[in-house]
């Protein structure tokens, strides 16, 4: 990100099976989040490739200058990454990252608004609204639909963020320290929710530095010196 180039990940190789719950542990600054961002197509690796369902996620490497230019805006690779983020991936951030101008329902619904045009929304809107209400009911926020993020607790915000990540029924849910900003009780609730999703067959990749949280996963990996190794 900065002016000095850091080699955060090297010779990393990870394969996640359908329905698997993988936890990646590591010290602060070890590159866990960077790994998750690359896996979820939020960031672009300088080298290497990520495959999803057998298809490469990234185009051949290009310089950073070019990546932030108009060629990237219009490139097929970016369109593919957008499509994956919109339909196949869901992402839960440590700091929730809810949009403060929107209420709870709208924060979830926005993830369903990305694809359709204004005209298509007329026909799809009510179904999307129903899905968003259902998922919010599932995370226990059916009474808070009209509340703004500023009116919610940290745990509630994280549940809204999870609902947003799940509303389009993603193949993989990426969670970046989902309990890192919560108290013990709220964290336990979130983990119970993730465990329940996993039991239902949801593929989850989570990074955490908390071994207790990582225990919920099928497989735990450690990231040290840019390399992944089994726990």
């Amino acid at each position, binding site marked *: 990100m900065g002016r000095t180039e850091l080699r955060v990940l090297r010779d990393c190789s990870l394969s996640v099976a359908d329905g698997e719950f993988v936890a990646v542990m590591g010290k602060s600054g070890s590159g866990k989040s960077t790994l998750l961002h690359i896996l979820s197509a939020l960031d672009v690796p300088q080298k290497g490739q990520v495959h999803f369902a057998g298809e490469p996620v990234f185009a051949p490497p290009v310089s950073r200058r070019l990546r932030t230019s108009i060629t990237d805006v219009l490139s097929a690779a970016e369109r593919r990454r957008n499509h994956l983020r919109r339909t196949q991936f869901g992402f839960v951030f440590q700091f929730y990252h809810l949009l403060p101008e*929107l209420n709870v329902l709208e924060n979830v619904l*926005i993830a369903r*608004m990305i694809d359709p*045009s204004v005209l298509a929304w007329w026909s799809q809107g009510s179904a999307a609204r129903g899905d968003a209400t259902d998922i919010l009911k599932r995370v226990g926020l059916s009474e808070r639909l009209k509340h703004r993020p500023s009116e919610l607790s940290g745990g509630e915000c994280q549940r809204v963020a999870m609902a*947003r990540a799940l509303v389009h029924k993603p193949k993989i849910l990426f969670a970046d320290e989902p309990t890192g900003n919560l108290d013990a009780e709220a964290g336990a609730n979130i983990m119970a929710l993730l465990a329940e999703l996993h039991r239902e067959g949801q593929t989850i990749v989570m990074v955490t530095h908390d071994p207790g949280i990582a225990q919920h996963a099928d497989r735990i990996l450690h990231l040290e010196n840019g390399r992944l190794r089994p726990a």
Partner: protein
Amino acid sequence: MYKLFLTLRYLRKRRIAYFAIAAVTLCVAMVLIVMSVMGGWLEMVKLRARGLLGDVIVDNKAFQGFPLYEEFIDEISGWPEIVKATPLVYSYGLFQFRQTLRDGTTQVIQDGMARVVGLRLEDVCEINAFKEGLFYEKHYPGTTHLGEQQQPLIGYDLAGDPIPLKDEDGAIFGYRRPILPPAYQAALAESQAQDVVDTESAEDENARFLEELGVPPMPGVYRIVDDFGPPRMAGDPRPGLILGRDIVAKRHSDGRHERHYPRGKMVTLTLWATAGHSVDPFPIKQPFRYADDSYTGIFEIDSQYVYCDFDHLQKLLEMDEADRIDRETGQVIGKAPARCSQIQIKITQRVDGKPVDPVALCRRLEELYHSYLSDERFQLDLTERKLITRVEAMTWQESQAHIIVPVEKEKILVTILFGIISLVAVALILCILYMIVLQKTRDIGVIKSIGGSSGGVAAIFITYGAAVGIAGAVLGTILGSLVVHYINDLQDALIWFHPSLRVWDPAVYSFDTIPSEVRTVDAVCIVAVAILASTVGSVAAAWRAGTMQPVEALRYE
């Protein structure tokens, strides 16, 4: 869908956007007001230039005028392009309204300089829009003429049944119906049958009294007989004079006029026959009767111009035909032809299906006039030859180019200046949107993390800029249109507050009212430019938002 949704939400929730909208609103309103007033002024200048002129004007710009106009008019009247041609005489003079005191002496109650125009009323009415501005001719058709006339007095209908009225004690008495002399009463009935209503005059006591009596209104002001006798024509016959309305009436703030004098009142013109045959010009004092008043809406015309009969004025100014006298021998050696100051010509649009080219026609008219110099039928002296040499024919646009072109340039200049000032709004939108992008960097990361494309994110801010432009342009158009619509009322209110706050001086801008019409094409252009400018102002912010990497945005502090 998310682009429109977030754009509208940011518009509603980010109050800073209201400042951008307010800036666009003010800029649009400002440019619209300026363009409407300047454009309206330009249109009025063109109308003024056109209204009292023919399609083609023959003139030599000399105070002495030019001879052989009758021969010229006779000759061109046979041309298929010519509908009508009429000569005019222009001069300057002093007008005076007087009133008689009880001791029989008179005193001047109003005087001023006047531009005196001699015209043949019927011909001029066929050539241009002069007739449409005549007040009494509108309400009493056929009664306005410039020949000898007396003053019409309102009298009482002694033959008809009286109108029953109650006095202060409740006793009923008969009141004779007030009527005008028969010709005027018949003309009034004719106009009233055609639903011609007087909306130009301020309400006065006489009008209210007639209304109370149940008598149809008598537009204008007439003297009433002193003896409760029948209506009649009174006073010595004098030539008629049409005066500019601002000479004989006061304009009220609602645009209506209150006349000071009754129709037919005597008015004296003092002229200076400098263009005459006499070696030593002398002043001529001539009484006229106020036959009608003319309204063009152009202050400098309505406050200065008076119109009398062409032949009469020509004679007064000694521009009519006269003996040519040898200065050395004192003997009559021929006839000096009559002269006029100008010829106005109405032309047809098409001849044999082909459009008439007015400029080419002007060249032909000039050639014809100049050919008189070598025509053996006419015996012209050196002065007359010089006057004919200077005769030019021009279209009405050419003749008024010295007025129209500067106003057109002024309009363009002022519009450009205010357009440049409006760039401030664009800069403001740029700053505000850039600030919003900085504030919303994390939101941009979130939108990208859920699949929003770079183009989509950029589109949010482009749409935002366009929405600010649309909202500002609509509000600005409404505000500007309202201000333009009520601009004269606003000025009247300012003048009422303090006379020095007058912003539109009729003496400077030529017109007594500020143009108050918004042209649709102006409004559409301004709205389009405002939306475009606002959208352009959002490009830099949109570019930054669009090219931001999601992770970079999410980590932004």
